[in-house]
């Protein structure tokens, strides 16, 4: 039955102004979940020495569970919530962009903010020039795809709504 319920609440037949915002938040949430799962996978296979949990849990919490599966699950959920804020910022600032390149740029900017500007906040994160090449490229690629996901979705939805 949960399937049916989900279908019903998803079926928004006629888009309205606030429903584009709702959809943007939803896109943010799903995007955060999905791409942080991929990020965790790349961490599991050592493509990247950092994972979402390195930022969200390990930087301030040194309990044992944070290094286990539970730590990953909790950090993925937290990323989903943070991602809603990221989507909201995109929605407020650059939703009118007509190309997905805006999304790519947004992803790169997010990456620079997290890995360079905010780096001093996290005691357990090495500075950018101490990170190895694999980690930098893997996370950068992930952030670019994530930015495209958020940006293109919100902009496309916005223009679709404008055309109605």
């Amino acid at each position, binding site marked *: 039955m949960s*399937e*049916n319920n*989900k*279908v*019903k609440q*998803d*079926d*928004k*037949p*006629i888009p309205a102004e606030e429903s584009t915002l709702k*959809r943007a938040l*939803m*896109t943010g949430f*799903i*995007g955060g979940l999905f791409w942080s799962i991929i990020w965790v996978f*790349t961490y*599991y*296979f*050592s*493509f990247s020495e950092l994972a979402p949990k390195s930022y969200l849990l390990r930087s301030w919490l040194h309990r044992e569970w944070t290094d286990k599966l539970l730590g990953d699950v909790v950090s993925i959920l937290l990323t989903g919530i943070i991602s809603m804020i990221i989507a909201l910022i995109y929605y407020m600032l650059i939703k009118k962009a007509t190309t*997905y390149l805006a999304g*790519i740029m947004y992803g790169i900017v997010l990456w620079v903010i997290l890995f360079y500007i905010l780096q001093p906040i996290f005691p357990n994160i090495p500075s950018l020039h101490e990170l190895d*090449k*694999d980690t930098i*490229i*893997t996370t950068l*690629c992930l952030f*670019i*795809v994530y930015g*495209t*996901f958020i940006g*293109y*979705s919100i*902009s*496309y*939805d916005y223009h*679709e709504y404008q055309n109605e």
Partner: protein
Amino acid sequence: MTQESVPKSNHDVEEYMTKRIGIGKSFDVGVRQLLVLKTNVQLYYVNGLVDSVMITKMIEELVEINDNEWANKRNIAKIIENRLLNIQVEKVETMDEAVDQVLTGLVSIFIDGIKYAIIVDVRSYPGRTPEEPDTERVIRGSRDGFTENIIENTGLTRRRIKDERLRNEMHTVGERSKTDVCISYLQDVADNHFIDFVKQKISEIETDGIPMADKTLEEFIMGGKWSPFPMVRYTERPDVASKHLMDGHVLLFVDTSPTVIILPTTYINCLEHAEEYRQAPAVGTFIRWIRLIAILGSLFILPLWLLFVMDPSLLPPQLSFIGPNEEGNVPIFIQIILGLIGVEFLRMAAVHTPTPLATAMGLIAAVLIGQIAIDVGLLSPEVILYLALSTIGSYVTPSYEVSIGNKITTFFLVILTALFGVPGFMIGTLIFILYLVNLKAFNTPYLWPFIPFDLTAMFRFIVRVPVPLVNNRPSIVHPKNVYSQPLQKRGRNK
């Protein structure tokens, strides 16, 4: 082109026809001269395209006019027209039209002294009866498939949609081939802009002919001409075609091709299969997930494995058994490329090999290439395993076109991974995704509903939702009529 009108005298008609379509030179165009009520009557036809039984019947009827209507004082053209027993009879006034019709397989009747020609439809095209398409088999469900005959094909969809709002518009493409192309859509559902766009694109085509039918047409209509991925979805199943028609898609039928073009389409749409809708929703979902795993496997398993062979330290301790125990004589990267090319050899050979030789080919493929290649130390057993997984994954892909596109992507990823390791793999995957994001069919993002994300549509892809719960059409086709069934239906399902 000058519009030459039909000359009064049949002598002139004969002269014109001899010059224009080469009567007497080409064996397949012919003329039959009759004397009806002391007037010369000429029938022009192409012998491979007309039904000779019907022509005989027609001539019989015309000759009998001499016995039946000898006292009738009416105009001879009226008498003859009255005596033509066929359904489709029309008049044309120019020679161009008359010639075109003859070459399409109709019969032109010229009557001495009358300034128009009578066109009678007695076409009977060589063709086969509908049979199940090879590429889209289902376990349950209809076994009919499109044929090479456009009339039969539109008939097959009309049988499934007996709606007065279904439009089948015929156009002609090709200066020489004069191929019939039919645009089908539901008038009150499909997007007008899109229909106009397609019609305009078709009318802009100025080429000699489109013998390769649907594929050539796709290249003329859609952007992304160099893209290895199909910009339209092809189907040979009337039920799949009808379903898309009702969702608000536009169909293009091309005469002489058993494949119908579905427009607009997306990458994800090409990954659906009729079988999923022929089984219970839960089973359909299961099939779809397995298929998705297979497709992702066909794309990523080889480059990932190559990565782990190149750098075993990437593997977590639980998975450290992956990777060949001994290095082998040939670098793994070369082995993978050789294997991929070998599999392509086999695939192409399987397409061209005549059935009696297929067993021999299977033997060579399985025993010689598989086993002996390992024995002589060319390939390592693990390469064969992952190669086989990747290949089977690509055969599971419902759309043949997508599976070939994915194959090229695999090559690309394997080469980048071999050259640059982890960064190569990640950047290659990024390029692959961004390339798909960049593709657009008309104004349809190719990776929709994944990027840009559409929750409803994505959910309907991940889960095969029961049809009574799907009330609205996919938003990607911009349907004029959003609902496919009344909304009250929801209440009943609570």
